[in-house]
């Protein structure tokens, strides 16, 4: 029974990792680049939702605030791609890593300047509402998190699997030149994907905010979410979710049953084990080069 409780809590938490991880995968799938500012985009999204929704700010209804935040973050991320990221198009992936690390600092500064550095609580309709069934307590927020994550993963998966643009984005990540010569507007697709990942990050941020308070440094969570995405196999959306869920579930179970420091190390030990066994992640795509 207790284990069940742990697993459910872990799943909900893992879904948040998974959601942030989805953002990483989105951008990776479209450009094979890693956006180290993904966690900070999540943070910014959460703050924008707070700015729109909280009673002492704009006070819009929660749903509208979230959708509005998603829209704003979509436009913002899209613009960031157009104005900044695009400048290093075709440059080695490392350039993007440095660029996004630096962008993370800027995002934190922006959020800190607007909302201050003290923790704030996002007002949500699910706070404190719990469902009980057979001795297991499930927070409404957890249920919403799990549901939204599944929906988003499915939606994005379908986007890549079935839409023209989704396919084009993948093509662009594998060979930018070839994508261009079949007529894919690679840069514009990139902007779109960045926009999408901003919107997804917002959802992750809002759901994360249901668990506690937010401050400009919650983006640090991005590092762990990134690790989750990687052990899932960075190019795979279900992989990202699975990676997030693994980390999410391992944490509370190890926290409950593993002794002392081992509990803290266990997510990282799991990561190492997964990577040693499957060096390209759980859902690795072909690695070996055909010569």
């Amino acid at each position, binding site marked *: 029974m207790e284990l069940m409780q742990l697993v459910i809590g872990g799943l909900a938490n893992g879904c948040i990792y998974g959601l942030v991880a989805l953002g990483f995968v989105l951008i990776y799938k479209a450009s094979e680049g890693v956006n180290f500012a993904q966690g900070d985009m999540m943070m910014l999204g959460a703050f924008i939702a707070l700015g729109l929704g909280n009673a002492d700010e704009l006070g819009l209804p929660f749903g509208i605030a979230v959708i509005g935040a998603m829209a704003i973050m979509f436009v913002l991320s899209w613009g960031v791609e157009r104005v900044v990221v695009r400048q290093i198009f*075709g440059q080695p992936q490392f350039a993007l890593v440095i*660029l996004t690390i630096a962008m993370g600092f*800027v995002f934190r500064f922006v959020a800190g300047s607007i909302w201050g550095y003290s923790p704030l609580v996002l007002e949500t309709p699910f706070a404190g509402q719990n469902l009980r069934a057979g001795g297991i307590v499930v927070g409404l927020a957890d249920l919403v998190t799990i549901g939204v994550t599944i929906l988003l993963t499915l939606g994005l998966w379908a986007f890549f699997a079935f839409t023209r643009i989704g396919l084009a984005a993948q093509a662009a990540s594998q060979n930018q030149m070839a994508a*261009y010569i079949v007529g894919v507007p690679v840069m514009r697709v990139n902007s779109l994907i960045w926009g999408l990942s901003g919107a997804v990050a917002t959802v992750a941020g809002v759901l994360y905010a249901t668990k506690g308070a937010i401050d400009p440094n919650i983006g640090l969570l991005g590092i762990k979410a990134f*690790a989750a995405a990687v052990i899932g196999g960075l190019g795979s959306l279900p992989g990202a979710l699975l990676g997030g869920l693994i980390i999410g579930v391992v944490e509370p179970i190890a926290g409950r049953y593993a002794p002392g420091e081992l509990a803290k*190390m266990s997510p*990282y030990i799991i990561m190492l084990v997964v990577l040693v066994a499957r060096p*390209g*992640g759980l859902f690795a795509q072909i*690695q070996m080069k055909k010569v």
Partner: protein
Amino acid sequence: MRIVFKTSYDKDIDLHEHGWSRAKIAVLAAIMVLLPFFVGEYYLAEAANTLIWALAGMGLMVAVGHTGQVSLGHAAFLAIGAYTDSALMNAGLPFLLSFPIAGIVTGIFGAIIAIPAVRMSGIYLAIATLAVFAIVEELVILLEPITGGVGGIMAPSIQIFGISFDRYGALDNFYWLILAIVALVTWGYANLMRSPTGRSFLAVRDSEVSARALGINVTRTRSLAFGLSTGVTGLAGALMGHYIGFYNYELFSIFISINLLLVVTIGGLGFIQGAFLGALLITAVPQVIAIARDGLNANFGIDLGGIPGLDTMIFAVILILFIIFEPTGLYGRWLKIRTWFEIFPLARRDMFRRQKSYLKTERMK
């Protein structure tokens, strides 16, 4: 325009192509050696700090720049170097022994880690090293008798043959010590890169299949490279410990790993010089920003000190502008400037305009 006539293979094998570049290095070395006579404590301490970062940067450069093994965990190796050195010195070993041993211990640890990690590349390796970092961090907390746990430890004072090289007691000596170590490592690194071992590193980076076909044992090469990389990083860690004087595990945070990554990439991946330029950037630019901010306040009464995080933000913007302006790093830009002067009258204005370039998947090696 300078033309170098090569009359023997030694010209290519030598570290310097011609006397001129040798002279430049000599002048630079002389300036560095004489620095304590010209500058005050502030600048000298900053110079020592920059050299330590350059040393750590060289360490990471071997892995990232020369064998293409990205590491997000090098802070862990700094920590291992620092704690090993301090522990050995506390056990009574002199610095002259404890220091190299700290490097070797760290190197062996790194080399062992690299063996199971050999099939990983790029981002996957980066995450594996991040995991190693997280585990080492916990171990540092656990090994309280050696590391002082959360509380931290005081770095022992360096004495060599009865002369003090203490950071806070004898900064000049400490600076010269660091300078000598950095010079030695740089020389060894440069040697490595003109020898078969260095070439095998580059081979593994660019094409694993070809490297294998040429008889290069990829596992061993990558493990050696990672071992050398972590070994040098361990040396830097030991020095950083002495430089800070007092430290606990929080000194070696993930941000240090990220900063190191900035050092090698902004400096110029694959160039020894890049490690130095990158270290200069990461240590000096924030100071320059802070000094400029003070200057604004003092001279124009514009007080920006009250805007929290502004320094960091400006630094980030400089990074962004820089990477947009020159994605191949500071050293790449320097090479271009040099070429421009060398062929001076012939240079076209837009000679270095970037031609469009495209990426291909790097998932297959």
